[in-house]
């Protein structure tokens, strides 16, 4: 019986997600957006989903996720440009290379915590950025980015517009499903334990480092996947894909959505892209407004949009907080 209900709940969750994902292209214009923005939102939501697996679950704040996204995009774009228009080949190779890099970076960076980890990941990502910008410009196109990528194909079908949207939507759904499975699996439990009390976990017989590397790797794969989709969708790869401001933007999206909730960061991505796109057409102060919104979230609503209802409920029922049951205590 329990099995049934859990399965049903899962199905309903995914069904709702599918409805939202596949209707975005038509609902977005009603809100002042445009249909292609929906595709973009979905691609970014895969990116932040991966980011959330690392940061939301394990608590390791990476400031270098642009590296995975950017490398995925460059590899995919390069293959589409020079070798084949087959999107699957380009994506598989892109994700493969990103996962190798993520694995290596994880082994190096995850020995550090907190600020050191953030700076180390940032430093690596910036290294890739500057490499792409000048020393490797023969392949990356330097500042102009990777231009002239041909429209990718899926078994002969040209992927652009609606077809691309559906293709991306399917991947988003797969990504969300996978991320949810990860979060709710024993594996996700371990990741959350890392965030909660890493040392304790070590003394529970767990090789914490391997779990962290794995989380980093999965996170990188998500970001790389999103990057390859981005290159295929844009048929263009800007150097900015590797810049740390993109990593910053991912953080902003996650904070606004709410770390560790999966669906929250996805919403955060949509909100930020919407503001960036729609607001910028109205006022050139959009960046300032976005900054203020971001800071307000950090200060007043650290749980992001996802915690909004909980916060409101708490606000209106402050006196209903159950009295603490204390049987015994330690003082010293």
């Amino acid at each position, binding site marked *: 019986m329990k099995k049934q209900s859990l399965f049903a709940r899962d199905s309903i969750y995914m069904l709702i997600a599918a409805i939202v994902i596949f209707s975005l292209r038509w609902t977005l214009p009603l809100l002042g957006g445009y249909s292609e923005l929906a595709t973009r939102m979905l691609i970014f939501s895969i990116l932040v989903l991966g980011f959330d697996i690392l940061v939301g679950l394990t608590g390791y704040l990476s400031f270098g996720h642009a590296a995975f996204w950017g490398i995925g995009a460059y590899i995919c774009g390069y293959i589409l440009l020079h070798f084949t228009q087959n999107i699957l080949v380009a994506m598989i190779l892109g994700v493969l290379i990103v996962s190798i890099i993520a694995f290596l970076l994880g082994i190096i960076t995850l020995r550090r915590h907190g600020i050191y980890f953030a700076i180390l990941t940032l430093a690596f990502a910036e290294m890739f950025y500057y490499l792409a910008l000048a020393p490797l410009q023969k392949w990356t196109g330097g500042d102009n980015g990777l231009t002239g990528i041909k429209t990718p194909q899926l078994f002969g079908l040209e992927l652009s517009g609606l077809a691309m949207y559906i293709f991306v939507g399917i991947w988003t759904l797969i990504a969300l499903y996978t991320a949810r499975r990860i979060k709710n699996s024993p594996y996700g439990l371990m990741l959350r334990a890392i965030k909660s009390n890493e040392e304790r976990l070590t003394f529970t017989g767990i090789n914490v480092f391997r779990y962290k590397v794995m989380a980093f790797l999965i996170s990188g794969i998500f970001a790389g996947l999103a990057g390859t989709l981005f290159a295929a969708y844009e048929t263009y790869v800007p150097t900015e894909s590797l810049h740390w401001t993109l990593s910053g933007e991912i953080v902003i999206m996650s904070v606004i959505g709410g770390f560790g909730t999966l669906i929250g960061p996805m919403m955060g991505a949509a909100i930020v892209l919407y503001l960036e*796109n729609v607001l910028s057409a109205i006022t050139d102060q959009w960046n300032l407004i976005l900054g203020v919104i971001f800071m307000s979230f950090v200060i007043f609503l650290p749980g992001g949009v996802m915690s909004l209802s909980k916060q409101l409920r708490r606000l209106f029922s402050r006196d209903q907080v159950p009295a603490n049951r204390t049987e015994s205590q330690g003082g010293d």
Partner: protein
Amino acid sequence: MSNQGKKTKTLSRRSFIKTGVAVTGGLMLGNQLGIGPVHWSARAQDYPALGNFPVGDKVVFGFNVPQTGAYSDEGADELRAYELAVEHLNNGGGMLATLMPSSLTGAGILGKEVTFVTGDTQTNPDAARDSARRMIERDGVIMFSGGSSSATAVAQQYLAQEAKVIFMDCLTHSNDTTGKDRQRYGFRHFFNAYMSGQALGPILAERYGTDRRAFHLTADYTWGHTQYESMKQFTEAQGWATEDNIMTPLTTTDFSQYLTPVLNSDADVLVLNHYGGNMINSLTQAVQFGMREREVNGKTMEVVVPLYSRLMAQGAGDNIEGILGTSNWDYKLSDEGSQAFVTSFEAKYGFPPSQAGHTAYVQTLLYADAVERAGTFYPPEVIRALEDYTVSGVGPGAVEYRGCDHQAFHDILVVEGKAPSARDSEYDLLETVKQVPRAEIGYECDFFPGELGPYGDES
């Protein structure tokens, strides 16, 4: 896009959706069922559906300029010029009086009132495309324009080609824009790095002699490379030697570590193939390092900046004094067209426009003129009307929009930074040394490799 014959009467699903978006999102479903209003020019049904087309009695332009980031002031000036252009298209005035020949009426375009939407490129190609996409899809723009970096221009040209909406590049100086990355749906009014070298070479020899050794600092990206190549080519043609070149990363703000090697070389000319913030910093710091006072081999060292803009001249302050470079246009030009533009710009905003503003203004007008001449907004027809078309009255001499690579050819300026004492306002920064005639600058169509791509209506 569509391979349907010229006589086809059915619209593709895609066009329907676009129309719907252009009207209003809410009507979209209706459109898909074929009941929404579809406004189309008289001959519209004769063409295969592609790109956008105006709906109702209004036509929308998209002005996509940097509103944030390092070039936001330049973007602001472009936007002022665009607004002025729209005003003149709807109500007459400005260059409408000087454009020769002109089909513009001062009552909109093909009887439709011109409106516009704006966007922020952030001088970031990705953001620029994103913003342009919104204009194309949501706002249904018939043409978009703007920009202040070659990377964003190139990125948007590809989008223009894909979406079959005409893009008028604004400020982009890289050879690639109309060279390897040229697109059928992109036109450039601005000159390019190659032309800068052509114009500057002879003047440099004239000023500084033919026995010079040049040290180049070059911004390490496409524009920098092309600028370096052309400066090297045209100074060496005058007998100069090239001592050395250092590629400086694009994000450099402190050039001192690149300037000290110059001090240790035999070079007596320093060429700064830098633009924007790069140029402001490298020039300022070159002056700080005493490059202007330096004596090498009995000659006073000279600094050259191949591409000037007001923005950069303002940023570099007094350091520009006596430094040679090139410019696309200057507000002090005395020809009728330039003056008509400057007068109306100053009347509206209280100060003179920059070359970026001029380019923005002229391109908007020339696009509108082409539509009038073509008699339709249908992009392939408008492109054909622009290609190989020569017009005058928008600046000194005549302007030719070459059909083979969509590069405009017109007189350009060799300029020199003014001494602070010689300036009559904060905008009066550059002195025109020579107006280089169109005939002296140019190259063959196939000099740079590149393909324009299809019009989109080929059967």
